[in-house]
Structures are given as structure tokens and as C-alpha cells.
């Protein structure tokens, strides 16, 4: 079963590489991301599958906005010169052979896995080991990841502003067909409930701050798709995102890096640990949602173009 799925996965990427129409290539990329998230599910990683499924919406939609709003690239063809494929193919096969020749053959150690799985319920709390790792043992990664997202959002918003920091009033709306609008209309009210569920139950079941935040941001994308509303104050969103990021850092410093939970962790009832996990997940979810909403609203109104 899993081997069939892996073969299907690698076959789904082949049409992307040899497709000549750009728009079709982007749609194939969306299908590829869907199959990838199923592969993650088979690997026993529902958190990663949720993240990939919700993220692939955004990467597809950014490409489509880029082609629909700014340039008419739907009819652009990629020229493929078959005779120029021979040398790169030889080089790639050489590199792959080199990799497989030097690939490590030893089985990976289970030391860290035993450590995490046997201790995380007492030390961090919750029943989801993945959340316990990214909010407890490896909080540095999460903090710097949030910082990276903030820097990207700031960079994109400042690249797309021209002189005065206002949104354009006369921008082309993306037209979608009536059938697609009806389907999006059905999905839209479910999205915020699903996002809030993912955030608040992230420490007990698959989900968490990142996935729930992206789903919440997808709600605003759907809202724009149906009604073409462009009324969110982007400057305020950016300021608010910075504020939430600094509160994440403060919470991380005071609760984890100074070692305070080690005093309460062992004897405290599970509710206290859940409070920390839920608060952190909510802050991260809000921050990711704000960041992606801001990215989307900057993408639909780029003023320099």
C-alpha cells in the first residue's frame, strides 16, 4: 500500500517537469501537494500532513494571483529543448549515484525518541508528542521560525508598498465562476471553527498553532474570493503581529528558558501544563494567521506594479 503510494507520488511530479503550459503546471503542483500530504499521513505524521495540506492552498493561490492579476501568463509556453537534456541528465545521474554510494546504512538510534516519548507527558504535558517537542524541548526552533515568518511578512509588505502606505482603490478583482463561488460559500463558515478547534485541541490531538493559524487565514482568503472585500487595515495587522511575536518571546523566556516550569511541572495537575500549551498555541496561531492574511492582502494589492 505505502509502496504504491510512493510510486504514485513520484509519478505525480513527472508531468510538472515536462509540462509546457504554466497554468497547468501550477494546478499539477496543487495535486502533487495533496498526494504529498497523504504520504505524510501514511508516515504516521498527521500534524505534518495538516500543515502541508493547508500550506499548499497558499502557495497555489499566490501563483494564481501572480498570473491572474498582474500578468497574462496563462498562454505562456515553456520552450523545451530536448537535445539540451542529455548533459544535465548525465550530471544528475552521477550525483544520485554518488549519493547512493555514500549513503549511511546504519539504522538510526532510538535514544532521543525513547527520551521524548517516555517523559513528555510529565515534563511538558498534553498527549501530542509533536506539540510537546515544538513547545517544550525545542522552543528555540519555534521562536526563530516565528521570527522568520515575521521578517518575510515585513519584507513583502515593504517591497509592495510604493510611497504612501495605503491600499490601492482601483485594483482588478479576481473573477471566479458562479459554480466555484457556490462551493467556496459552503466551505467558508466551516473554516474558522475548524481553525479554532485545531488551535485549542492542538496539544491533545493532531493540529496546533501553525496549522490552525493557516486555516484561519484561509478563511479570509475565501471571504475575499466570494465578495471581493478588501477592507482590512494592513498596517495595523503588521503592528499587531509584531506585538504578538514579542509576547511569544516574553512568554518563552519567562516560562521556559528561565526554568520556571521545572518547579511546577512534576507535581502540578495536568490543567496547569495545558494552560501553558493552549496559550502558546493560541499566540502562535494568531501570529501565523495575521502573517498570512497580511501576505495575501499585500499580494492582491501590489502598488509598485
Amino acid at each position, binding site marked *: 500500500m*505505502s509502496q504504491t503510494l*510512493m*510510486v504514485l*507520488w*513520484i509519478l505525480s*511530479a513527472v508531468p*510538472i*517537469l515536462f509540462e509546457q503550459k*504554466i497554468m497547468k*503546471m*501550477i494546478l499539477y503542483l496543487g495535486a*502533487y*501537494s495533496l498526494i*504529498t500530504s497523504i504520504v*505524510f499521513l501514511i*508516515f*504516521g*505524521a*498527521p*500534524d505534518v500532513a495538516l*500543515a502541508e495540506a493547508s*500550506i499548499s492552498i*497558499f*502557495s497555489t493561490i499566490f501563483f494564481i494571483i*501572480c498570473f491572474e492579476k*498582474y*500578468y497574462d*501568463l496563462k498562454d*505562456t509556453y*515553456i*520552450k523545451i529543448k530536448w537535445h539540451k537534456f542529455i548533459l*544535465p*541528465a548525465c550530471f*544528475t545521474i552521477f550525483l*544520485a549515484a554518488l*549519493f*547512493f554510494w555514500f*549513503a*549511511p*546504512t546504519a539504522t*538510526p538510534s532510538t535514544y532521543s525518541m*525513547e527520551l*521524548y516519548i517516555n517523559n513528555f507527558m510529565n515534563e511538558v504535558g498534553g*498527549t*501530542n*508528542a*509533536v506539540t*510537546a517537542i*515544538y513547545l517544550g524541548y525545542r522552543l528555540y*526552533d519555534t521562536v526563530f*521560525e516565528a521570527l*522568520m*515568518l515575521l521578517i*518575510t511578512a515585513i*519584507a513583502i509588505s515593504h*517591497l509592495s508598498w510604493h510611497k504612501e502606505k495605503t491600499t490601492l482603490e482601483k485594483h482588478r478583482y479576481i473573477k471566479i465562476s458562479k459554480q466555484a463561488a457556490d462551493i467556496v460559500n459552503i466551505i467558508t463558515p466551516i473554516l474558522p471553527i475548524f481553525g479554532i478547534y485545531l488551535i485549542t485541541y492542538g496539544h491533545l490531538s*493532531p493540529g496546533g498553532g501553525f*496549522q490552525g493559524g493557516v486555516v484561519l487565514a484561509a478563511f479570509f482568503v475565501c471571504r475575499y474570493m466570494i465578495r471581493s472585500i478588501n477592507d482590512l487595515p494592513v498596517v495595523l495587522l503588521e503592528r499587531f503581529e509584531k506585538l504578538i511575536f514579542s509576547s511569544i518571546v516574553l512568554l518563552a523566556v519567562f516560562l521556559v528558558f528561565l526554568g520556571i516550569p521545572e518547579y511546577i511541572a512534576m507535581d502540578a495537575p495536568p490543567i496547569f501544563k495545558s494552560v501553558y500549551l493552549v496559550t502558546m498555541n493560541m499566540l502562535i496561531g494568531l501570529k501565523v494567521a495575521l502573517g498570512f492574511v497580511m*501576505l495575501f492582502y499585500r499580494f492582491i494589492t501590489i502598488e509598485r*506594479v
Partner: protein
Amino acid sequence: MTFAQTVAILMFFLAFFGLITSRNIVKSIVCLVIKETSAIVFFLGLRFREGILPPIGESLSQPLEYIADPLPQALMITAIIIGLAVTAVDIIMLIYLTHETGSTDWDEVKAKTKARVASLDYE
């Protein structure tokens, strides 16, 4: 290496082949996305076996060899989010480049940018 990891490496080099042969900027960005995803599959495929359980909830009471490793999963979630951020920056750079040169072909963009730089005055 498990079967899943072998397939992930093959996919990585397939995307690498697409990247070095692509004549179009959009295709290059798409190939970068595929490369990133295959690296994630490689790390998640560590210790993979048929019917493996997620490290969540009741399945934690099973013996360790039936549970997936939570550490790569926690790291790969952040890698996916960063991947989207990188893609967004790529696309916004593509929008500017195409706005300046009117093309998404690497050769045309290179030639037009060179001509534009040569015509600029640095005084």
C-alpha cells in the same frame, strides 16, 4: 535506507534535474518547492514501516517500534512554514522581474537586465 527514503532521494534528484534544465523562472520556483517537499519526506521516512502509528494519544501505549519518531515531525512542521515564506518571497521577486522585463524566460530576462544596467548612469 528505507524504501520511502530511496524514493524521496530519487524525487530530489528529479527536481534537481528540472531545476538545472528549466528555461523558465516559474518552473524553477516550482522545482524548488518539490525539492523542499522531498527533503521533508526523506526525514519523515526515517524508521518507516507499514502501518506505523502517530505519536499522539492512545497509540503511545504501544511498543516503541510501532510509533513514528516525533522529533523529525516537529522540525518538519517549521520547515514547511518556512518553505511557504521562501516561495512567497520568490514570487514577489518574480512579479518585479516580469514587470521590469516583460518576460519569464531566464535568457530574455538576463539579456534585458544587462541592457538596462548598461544604460544606467552611475554619476
